[in-house]
């Protein structure tokens, strides 16, 4: 089907759009955000400050952004995709030149009113531009090498710029998200097999480069990898994050130590407890039950997105919806794998739960696109 069908069917307009908002998804997103508030409140020792309250305000802002995006027709977003992608690339270059340095990386662009993190923006614009690209591209040509190469360039450009900041976590998410888009668009599976093989080779190369003049990763990144492989090498240094986070998780047990009773987070044994490692606090205080509950909420969000995508009629809407879902999935999967010691420590926040502005706004923007696609899908007239 295509936009042709918009001629025979109708799409909601005006106030009617409100009725067609996917309210279950809004409810789920709010529930996940509420888990975040609860944890931020607990970590602060039972206080709304300094984290829970700003986080609530941000979520309110995020909801506003989502609805704003949702009520704009999806075809508008498709038409501005390339432009948005271009702008985000430009911002990534700018942040390299004029950005604010924080935590050893140049990630922030201070626009006076708001501190923008272009790498977050790039995630959603990449999804948009790839969706538009594959919407435009004939499916039969999608697996042809030259067309695959174009998609790869679209992915690698922002990923490379982000890696230079350096922000390994976001770069990985960009590559994974982009790859997911290509997969969803129907690129032949052999490409993915090759990429996975190459990936293994690249990991070997990166490890081999260590200590040589052309060392690819920074020393701290290598230390994190070592610590991941064997956290006990350096329990107070590079392995500290992983060890302490496993202790926090493990000590939570089946049902946790109770709200505000987590000793690991309350006593500061956990690093970055309000951002990347917030899941450990949750798991410590609410245990296996709490952790699985959050995982279930995330799973439901994914399921709602996928179901919504299946009912959509045009390719851009479907790809954007699935792309946002995939990005969201990579966020929490990488974060959880990291805190559980299944993946190296890379700076990836837990979506909607971790304290932080840019990531949440961009995610809500993405869900805005999902809602827009959902609202503006053609429905039978009458």
């Amino acid at each position, binding site marked *: 089907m295509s936009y042709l069908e918009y001629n025979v069917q109708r799409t909601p307009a005006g106030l009617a759009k409100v009725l067609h908002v996917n309210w279950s998804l809004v409810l789920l997103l709010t529930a996940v955000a509420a888990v975040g508030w609860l944890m931020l409140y607990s970590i602060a020792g039972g206080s709304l400050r300094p984290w829970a309250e700003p986080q609530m305000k941000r979520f309110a802002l995020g909801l506003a952004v989502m609805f704003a995006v949702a009520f704009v027709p999806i075809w508008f977003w498709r038409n501005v995709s390339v432009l948005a992608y271009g702008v985000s690339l430009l911002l990534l270059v700018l942040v390299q030149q004029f950005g604010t340095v924080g935590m050893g990386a140049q990630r922030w662009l201070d626009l006076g009113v708001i501190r923008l993190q272009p790498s977050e923006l790039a995630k959603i614009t990449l999804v948009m531009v790839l969706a538009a690209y594959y919407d435009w591209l004939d499916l039969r040509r999608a697996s042809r090498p030259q067309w695959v190469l174009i998609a790869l360039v679209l992915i690698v450009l922002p990923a490379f710029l982000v890696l230079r900041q350096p922000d390994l976590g976001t770069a990985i998410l960009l590559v994974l998200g982009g790859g997911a888009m290509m997969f969803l668009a*129907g690129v032949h599976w052999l490409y993915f097999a090759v990429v996975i093989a190459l990936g293994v080779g690249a990991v070997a190369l990166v490890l081999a480069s260590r200590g040589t003049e052309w060392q690819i990763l920074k020393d701290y990144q290598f230390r994190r990898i070592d610590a991941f492989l064997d956290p006990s090498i350096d329990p107070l240094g590079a392995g500290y994050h992983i060890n302490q986070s496993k202790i926090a998780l493990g000590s939570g047990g089946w049902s946790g130590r109770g709200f505000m009773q987590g*000793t690991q987070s309350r006593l500061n044994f956990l690093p970055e407890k309000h951002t990347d490692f917030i899941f450990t606090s949750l798991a410590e205080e609410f245990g296996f039950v709490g952790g699985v509950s959050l995982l279930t909420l995330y799973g439901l969000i994914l399921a709602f997105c996928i179901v919504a995508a299946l009912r959509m009629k045009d*390719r851009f809407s479907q790809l954007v919806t699935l792309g946002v879902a995939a990005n969201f999935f990579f966020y929490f999967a990488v974060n959880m794998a990291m805190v559980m010691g299944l993946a190296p420590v890379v700076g990836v926040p837990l979506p909607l739960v971790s304290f932080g502005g840019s990531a949440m706004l961009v995610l809500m923007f993405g869900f805005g696109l999902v809602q827009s696609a959902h609202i503006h899908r053609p429905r039978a007239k009458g």
Partner: protein
Amino acid sequence: MKRPARDAAETSRSVTRRGLVAGGLMGGTMLVLAGRMRHLQVAEADTFRLLAEENRINIRLIPPVRGLIHDRTGQVIAANEQYYRVDIVREDAGDVEMVLDRLARLIDLPPEMIERALREIRRHRPFVPVTVAERLTWEQIARIASNAPALPGITPEAGLSRFYPLAGDLVHVLGYVGAVSERDLAEQEVPDPVLRLPGFQIGRIGVERHMEGALRGRAGTKRIEVNALGRVMRELDRQEGTAGRNIQLTIDHRLQNYVQARVAGESAAVIVMDLRNGDLLAMASSPTYDPNLFVRGISGPDFRALLDDPYRPLVDKTVQGVYPPGSTYKMVLAHAALEAGLTHPDERVFCPGHMDVSGRRFHCWRRGGHGRLNMVSALSESCDVYFYEMGIRLGIDRVHAMAERLGLGVRHDIPMSSISAGLNPNPQWKRDRRGDAWRVGDTVNASIGQGFVLSSPLQLMVMTARLATGRALVPRLVRSVGGVEEPVPEAPPLGLDARAMAVIRQGMDETVNHRRGTAWNSRVVEAAARMSGKTGTSQVFSITAAERAAGVRRQQDLPWNRRNHALFVGYGPQPAPTIGVTVVIEHGGGGSSAAAPVARDVYLQALHGGFPPLSAYPEPQRNRMETLQRELSERMLPPGGPTRDRA
């Protein structure tokens, strides 16, 4: 943008297919995550919970309060003194340098102290208290407290530290406490964890060391919750320890104080014993030093000065110093000879002033000789030739056996450091240690307490006590521990012949109370305080022929460290003695001139519990004694006991 419908349908199916595959992959990944969560949180929960507790809880020790040491009158002679120090916490102080500058001006701290504190502060984490100054006066602390608002981060703290109110008087008995060294920890298999507390002090020598077990007590513990930086968040619970037990010694601090004043300036050892039970009433070694210096950490130059002092203040001469007993040894010979039946009290031996034994001439101290002497006169006039004769008749083995019965060559077990066993020689010893056979000349030397014979003042005290009582008295230094009386050791009769004892006691009586006795000048004329005793003068070096030719005749002409040791052992009052006294004055010259007068004064002081009436002294000495008493009372403690003021 227009596309055939067939293509559109195909495209849509493709997305649907891939979407479902992707959903499946996501679901699978989530299952893996849930499985990992289950593994960590359910299967290994106990392990990790334990690790979390270990992270969280620290056990801190509460140092126990060290037991006090009292003298026999109840006076505290080793006290715990509260001392004040100021700590600074960097993160509370803000501008550390400004705060320290204010503090320095407020309580007059030297700049190097501030420098040191700043260095320490930089070395520690911002919340760790660092001690700026220790042992502040109450006035300084009050000034800090009243200026507290201007001194953020500064906290006055109180701690306990050992203080010895009598300073040097009892230092050789008590010893002192000091910091724990690595070696102390290595000595024990499982060191008491309290030893690792910063600033904890243990007994280094003396009673403090040997009674450490009783004095230390047991540390209490408190469990505290700490955060990742080690900052204390709260106390969870606390278990009080037990304070160390108080100890009471047999020493009388006032007598000790008198003795120290009396022998000040000499290198000397004085012991006073209660002959009824062996209680050591005074154990003085002179010169002394201030143990409080050691508690606070003595400076290098101060310690060097103590080490280099020729009078060796660091040595405890009462138990550690050994001397040839000289003529005080003659009672051993007398008892052995009477018991063996080799002489009888009335046998007279001729003293021509010397005796030739196997080609060597042994002199009597009186060059002109004593003429014919019985045992009593031989003792009171301290004739050497008489005892040479007895020694030759006895042979060294019998002398050795009697010396041991009287407590010589025996290590007496009291809780003090470096107690010497002295040397009670016999042929076996000489073969083993010198690789040489025992010769008759060795016996002759030994029979006047010279040659190889070495005894500590404590051993001479025990010998004197046993001669005076006929019982195997042993010294006792600790009267009670933790309020529980220490048993008085059994003192069974030595099995000495009563007639022999009577003869020897008469000899010792005449030494002091007979016109011809060597200690006649040190007699007590007060009837109820009649003292007996025996002088001794032991040679350190012989006067050489060259010196004699150069005109050296008298001890005073020799340099100090080559003069003879002066000894006196005595007891009284007759006929039922209660006080025994031993005096050794290193290089004092002669027993009768240097040691006996000191012994008499100490004996009278012990008997009277204060200055004796002048009437106890012979008429011509009373003026001199009055002056001496006045001088001494100025140097002694005021009657109210030691003040708490410190030097």
